[in-house]
Every structure is written in C-alpha cells, then in structure tokens.
C-alpha cells in the first residue's frame, strides 16, 4: 500500500509539471483547450495527493508499523483522535499535509475562478503549480512519508510504535497546526493572483477584489492558528505564559503582520489607485514569509522549544526562496510602468496617511521580529559570536509598536480621504478623546503606576468609543428613515457595508485583546512548599491543602494536590493541580488547575515534591480571559466582513474601453 501512495505522489509531481506547461503554452499561444487541460490537471493532482494522504492517514489509524513514519509517531494505545493528528506530528507527514492543503486550495481556486477571471486563470495555475512542485519534490525525493522499516534489505514491522509526545496529546494538537497550515498555505493563492495580474498586465483593479477575499480567509485561519497556539501554551505549559517570542512562534507571526499590512494597503489601491508597487511587494513578502516560516521550523538554524528534527530540507527551501524572490523582483521591476500611482498624498491627517503609517509600523514590527529571531544566525556570520536576544528585547520594541497601532485603529477609520477638516476631527474625536483622558486620569488617581498599562487602557477606551459611536450614529441614521428598532438598525447598517462594520468588529476584538494584555504587569507569582493541612495565601485568595495524593494508571503515574480555594472568607470550590508521568514515553506533563473569571485567573501548577512536601506554583493573572474573548470577537468580525454586502460596491475607477494605435515621429 505504501507503494501506491508513493506512486500517487510521483504521478502528482509529473502532472503538476504538465499543468504548468499546458497553462503557460495554452495562454501564450492562445490555445484555450490546452489551457483547459491545465485546469483539469490541477484537479487531477488533488485526486492523487488526496490518495497519498488518505493512505498515510489510514496507515496511521490502523497502526501499520511497517511504515517508519507510523512507527515513529503513533503507538497502539493512542486514541484515534491523536493517531489522526500524527499526520502533522512529524516532518514527512506535515510536508504531505502542506501539499494536500495546497492542492485543495488550488482546486477551489480553479473551480471558483473559472467564470469571472478566465484571463488570469492560466497564470494562477502556473504559479500555484510551481509551489506545488517544490513541495512534491520534498514529498517524493527528500522526505518521503512512505519509507518502510527494513533490516538488511528485508522489510520488517515494529511490534509497537513510539507514540506521539504526551505534551502533544492535547485537544489543541488536533486543530492548532491545521489552522496554521491553512494560513501558511493559503497565502499562496492571493500571491498567485497578484503575480498573474502583473504578468498579464491586467488593467483595472478587479483582481484585487478576489485577491482580497482570499487574503481575508487565509488571514482568518492564520489569526486563529496563532491564538490557538497562545491558548495552548497558557493552559498546558505550567508557567502561565501565552507568548514567549520563541522562533517558531515568531515564524507564524511574521506573515500575519505582513498580511495585515496588505489587507489595509490594498484598500488604498482600490479606492485611490495608490501604492500599487507596494502592494505587489507586500503580498509577495507575505507569501515568502510563509515559506520562510515553514523553513525556519524545519531547518534547525535557530534553537527553539518547538523541536523538529534537523532535516535535509533546509537547502531546498533556501534555493526555492532565492529563486522565487529573484523572479518576483524581476517581474515587478519589468512591469513598473503599469503600476503608476493615480493619486498623491495630500495631508498628514487623511485616510491615506493613516494607511501609510499603519503599513510602516506593521512592517517595522515585522522587520524587528525577523531581526530578533535571526539574530543568532546574523551575529555568528558577522562576529563569530552566536548571540540570542531574550523576550524582554522583543517586548521593549513590540509594546510601543502595538500601542501606536492601537491608536491608529481609532484615528484611521475616521479620517477622511485626502484631507480631514477640523470640524470633522472635532465631531468624531471629541467624545472619545475626552473620555480616554478621563480614563487615564482615573487610573492614575486610582494608584496605577505602570505607564504602558495606563496608556494601553486609555487608548483602548478611545478606540472602543470611536467604534461604538460609528455604530450608534449609523444605526440612528437608518432608524430615522425606516423607523425600525435600534438592534435591527445595527444589523441593517452592518449588512449594507459588511466590510466596514465587520472591520470595526475586528478592531474591537483587538481592543479587547489589548485590555487583556494590559493586565500583565499586575501578575502575582508565588511558590509554596506545602504539607497536607497547610494554608497559603496569594492575592485575595486563601488556599488550604486538603490532601496530597498519588496513583497509577495503565498509561501514567500521577501526583496531585487537592486545594480548597476561598476568597475573603467565601469558599469558591476545589482545585486539583497534578503532575503525570507517562510510562511508555518516559515523559511528564503538568495538569494545570485553573479558575478563570473575567477579572482574573487563579492558576495553580503542581511542580513536584521533596520528601513529604509538595511544591505548588500559584499565579494570579488579571484580565487574561479578555485575550481569548477578544480573539473570538476578532474571528466573528472577520466572518461578518466576509459576508457579501447588501449594497454592491463598484471598485473599478478606470475602465478599459479599447486600444488605439499611435504613431510617433521624432522631429529632427
């Protein structure tokens, strides 16, 4: 069966090559049926890669321990849930997962674009197939998932597998990588559309409409994947942190930052025909950062707690990146005259200006994160010392950047195009501005001394107030005409322009997340060595150790502490943090006990025992729940923005009605 899988991948490789050739030749030589066969080739590739992936998944679920990949990443005792997740638990499987997702995206792109963007389709297919071929090369010739175990040329089967690391046997393992991959892989499609528009010198801006939609969906997946990773770290790792600027975390953030910048700057191109060159650069950068992120997590060039094996795929990624970037630079430079700006910047206080600074600050942060992540590699090249930068360095940069961006989300949407009048500024910003100053004053009077938290919370109020006012004023305008209630008016308002009001909801989600992040300086940390019957305090909480127990199951040995929690005398229930030691893999995990409320989380970790005493790490994290709530609002807002607006919007400003030949003679 492994042979069928390997053959399917090989065929997929050949047919992808055909897809490129037939699409390009069919387009250039004007042979529509040849180009059509290219479209069908893409669908055939999907069928073949699905067959290969299906065989791998089947082998994982049924425990075919003849296959090296199955033996390395599953064992008999694992639940089916995690056996399925083992598909992306190791390098070969995860690269096949990449290929499968790309083939699926390509198929969807072909099926949805056939009618409206026929002229771009052959180039889109050619570009996606180039990327597909790169990953199929890895799947076929460098890291095959279908290798079998053999001893002296005889195929043998292991009695049982090694199993997935217990740290990964957490429900988030089944969804965090797939969402991230959906994001990483997905940016290939808008990139392909952008390059196609460039190659075919497509006039007008209609390609932006479809590109933007794809980018929004992909961005949604990427955002969800990143936040799932953060939530996983918080709930599982035992030290209550949700982001540590680890290289693999940073790798997932880089395309997100560039993608966010692109989503905003593309609006400039739609409305005003500006930043055309910049948008081409941005979408390419987003795509190449995805490839770079995939490379970073597999090559081992930087040390990370997310340990993948040092793999031989590194040089291939570097070659692909080099060729791709060179090709894109050449293409953009060659087509520069088709990317001339139609308008100019006029005022510092304008919508264009706010998009410009939005992009500047997002790209600056992208560069900063990239620089910090690669610093060990860079410093080794230039100074023989390998130096790494700690989380404090990242925070020192990213906190002010984040706060400036937060301010911009309040200012930008309310600035007018070209120039904002003073009257407009007063109307839109008076209430939010005064309100935020009151909030800041109240916090300072109330005793808060952390400047970043004060600034963050007052900016949060500012942005939230601008958004609420927008909804309020818009809904009232509709109510006056239609006489409907307030909530139906809000829904009607949103439905008429889902892009704008969905976007406001996304911004609101970011505001809520920032409120959550503002609680960080107020975290409390305590370490207790306790016996049964001891009582300890942290913050307002009193913890009484009712019992220290231990036990044994088939899978693992465990130790736990039963703690009775009360606050200012009022009993709140029991929390039981525990520690497990998995016998098969000799791996231990902490089962954190968490009491999560809107105002703060009480977080207890069982760290171990010394003799009769158990060590409990206790933490109080204020406002952390707001982070997860904000992420949900962000996701909801993006979904709203994806709903088609009730009122169709026309984006094209220039319409090509024909071409005229002009003879120019030069006077001597």
């Amino acid at each position, binding site marked *: 069966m492994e042979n069928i899988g390997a053959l399917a991948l090989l065929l997929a490789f050949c047919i992808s090559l055909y897809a490129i050739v037939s699409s390009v030749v069919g387009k250039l030589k004007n042979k529509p049926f040849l180009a059509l066969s290219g479209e069908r080739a893409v669908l055939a590739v999907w069928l073949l890669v699905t067959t290969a992936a299906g065989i791998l998944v089947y082998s994982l679920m049924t425990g075919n321990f003849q296959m090296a990949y199955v033996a390395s990443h599953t064992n008999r005792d694992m639940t089916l849930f995690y056996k399925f997740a083992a598909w992306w638990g190791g390098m070969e499987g995860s690269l096949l997962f990449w290929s499968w997702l790309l083939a699926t995206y390509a198929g969807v792109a072909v099926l949805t674009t056939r009618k409206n963007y026929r002229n771009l389709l052959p180039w889109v297919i050619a570009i996606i197939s180039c990327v597909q071929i790169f990953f199929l090369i890895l799947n076929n010739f460098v890291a095959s998932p279908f290798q079998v175990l053999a001893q002296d040329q005889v195929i043998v089967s292991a009695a049982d597998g090694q199993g997935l*690391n217990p*740290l990964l046997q957490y429900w988030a393992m089944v969804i965090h990588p797939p969402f991230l991959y959906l994001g990483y892989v997905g940016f290939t499609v808008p990139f392909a559309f952008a390059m196609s528009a460039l190659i075919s010198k497509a006039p007008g801006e209609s390609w932006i409409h479809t590109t933007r939609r794809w980018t929004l969906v992909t961005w949604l997946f990427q955002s969800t994947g990143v936040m799932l990773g953060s939530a996983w770290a918080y709930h599982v*790792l035992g030290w209550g942190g949700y982001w540590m600027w680890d290289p693999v975390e940073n790798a997932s953030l880089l395309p997100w930052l560039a993608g966010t910048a692109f989503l905003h700057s593309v609006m400039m191109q739609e409305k005003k025909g500006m930043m055309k060159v910049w948008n081409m650069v941005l979408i390419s950068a987003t795509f190449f950062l995805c490839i770079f992120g995939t490379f970073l997590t597999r090559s081992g060039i930087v040390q990370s*707690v997310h*340990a993948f094996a040092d793999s031989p795929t590194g040089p291939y990624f570097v070659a692909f990146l080099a060729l791709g970037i060179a090709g894109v630079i050449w293409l953009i430079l060659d087509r520069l005259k088709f990317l001339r700006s139609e308008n100019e910047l006029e005022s510092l206080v304008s919508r264009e200006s706010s998009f410009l600074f939005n992009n500047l600050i997002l790209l600056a942060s992208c560069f900063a994160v990239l620089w910090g992540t690669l610093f060990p590699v860079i410093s080794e090249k230039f100074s023989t010392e390998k130096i790494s930068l700690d989380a404090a360095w990242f925070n020192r*940069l990213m906190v*002010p950047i984040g706060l400036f961006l937060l301010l911009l989300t309040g200012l930008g949407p309310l600035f007018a195009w070209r120039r904002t009048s003073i009257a407009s500024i007063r109307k839109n910003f008076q209430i939010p501005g005064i309100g935020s100053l009151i909030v800041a004053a109240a916090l300072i009077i109330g005793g808060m001394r952390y400047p970043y938290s004060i600034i963050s919370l007052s900016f949060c109020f500012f942005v939230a107030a601008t958004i609420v006012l927008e909804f309020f004023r818009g809904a009232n305008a509709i109510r006056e005409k239609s006489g409907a209630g307030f909530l139906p008016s809000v829904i009607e308002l949103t439905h008429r322009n889902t892009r704008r009001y969905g976007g406001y909801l996304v911004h609101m989600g970011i505001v809520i997340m920032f409120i959550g992040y503002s609680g960080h300086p107020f975290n409390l940390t305590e*370490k207790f060595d306790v016996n049964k019957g001891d009582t300890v305090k942290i913050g307002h909480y009193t913890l009484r150790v009712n019992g220290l127990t231990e036990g044994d199951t088939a899978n693992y040995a465990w130790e736990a502490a039963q703690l009775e929690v009360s606050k200012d005398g009022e009993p709140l229930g029991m929390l039981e943090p525990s520690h497990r030691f998995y016998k098969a893999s000799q791996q231990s995990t902490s089962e954190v006990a968490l009491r999560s409320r809107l105002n703060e989380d009480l977080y207890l970790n069982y760290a171990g025992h010394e003799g009769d005493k158990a060590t409990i790490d206790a933490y109080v994290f204020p406002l952390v729940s707001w982070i997860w709530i904000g992420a949900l609002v962000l996701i909801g807002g993006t979904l709203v923005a994806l709903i088609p607006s009730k009122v169709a919007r026309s984006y094209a400003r220039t319409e090509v009605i024909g071409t005229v030949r002009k003879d120019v003679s030069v006077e001597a």
Partner: protein
Amino acid sequence: MHKYWKFGALMAVIVGSLVWLATAGISSSQSYYKTISELNQMGTAAQTHHLRVSGDIKPKSIVKQDGIVKFTLVQDKLALNVAYEGRDPLPDTFKDGSQALADGRMGPDGIFHAQEIQAKCASKYAPKPGMAPDSIQKQVQGSKAAYGS
C-alpha cells in the same frame, strides 16, 4: 517634493524611536551561545557575560534541594555542573538525557548559575533521516530474530 517633508519627518521620528528602543539596553538582553568546551576556554570572562550553554542532561544527575535544582550537563566528554535558581517551573521536557539550554552566568564556585532552562525532547524522538529511531531499531532487530533470516 517638499510637500512630503511632514511625512518624511514623522516616519523618521517613528523609525528613529524604534531603532533607539532596539539598541538601548541591548547588551542586557544578549546571551552568548556557548558549548561547554567554549565555556571552559573563556576562563574568568564567563563570569561577566550572560551565557547560554547547551548540552545533554546526565542521567541521574538531577537533584532538587531547597528550591534549587542541580544537575550536570554533558557534551562529548566534558561536563558542567548547573544550578537552576529561577522562579518558573522547569519544562516538562526536562529529564535525564534531554537536550537542555541553560541561560545564566558562570559562578566563581565553578557552578553555572542558570536563571532560565529550556529543554528539548531527547534526540531519540528525532531520528536521523534514513534511520529508524532507537527504540524501533531494537524492536526491528528483535523481529528479525523471529523471522530467523
């Protein structure tokens, strides 16, 4: 182009502040990656610099005492005694045989005082390409004996 001077100025201020934030105090954020042999070659300089030392945790060397965790890192034939004095709980991957990264300073007592520990799963989880992981290799040899070839 003089009408763009306001934009240029604001951009310069923003980028300038970021560069300043990045470089001010960078020395307190820097850690030098060292192997144990490089650490030994540093001599007393190891006591003044912020270092990250990598190695494998020697089996049965982990001792927890008075809130400090002591263990030995080995690399090839060299060994380094480490004392972890940080507040955060040790990662779950921290156990005999794991690859570990200790972040801190060398003390005059010859013990490396670490403030932060990172640990990765032991390399048996990540076999070299073309080879089966160790535990599978043993099983495979076992089943070969069963086949009696």
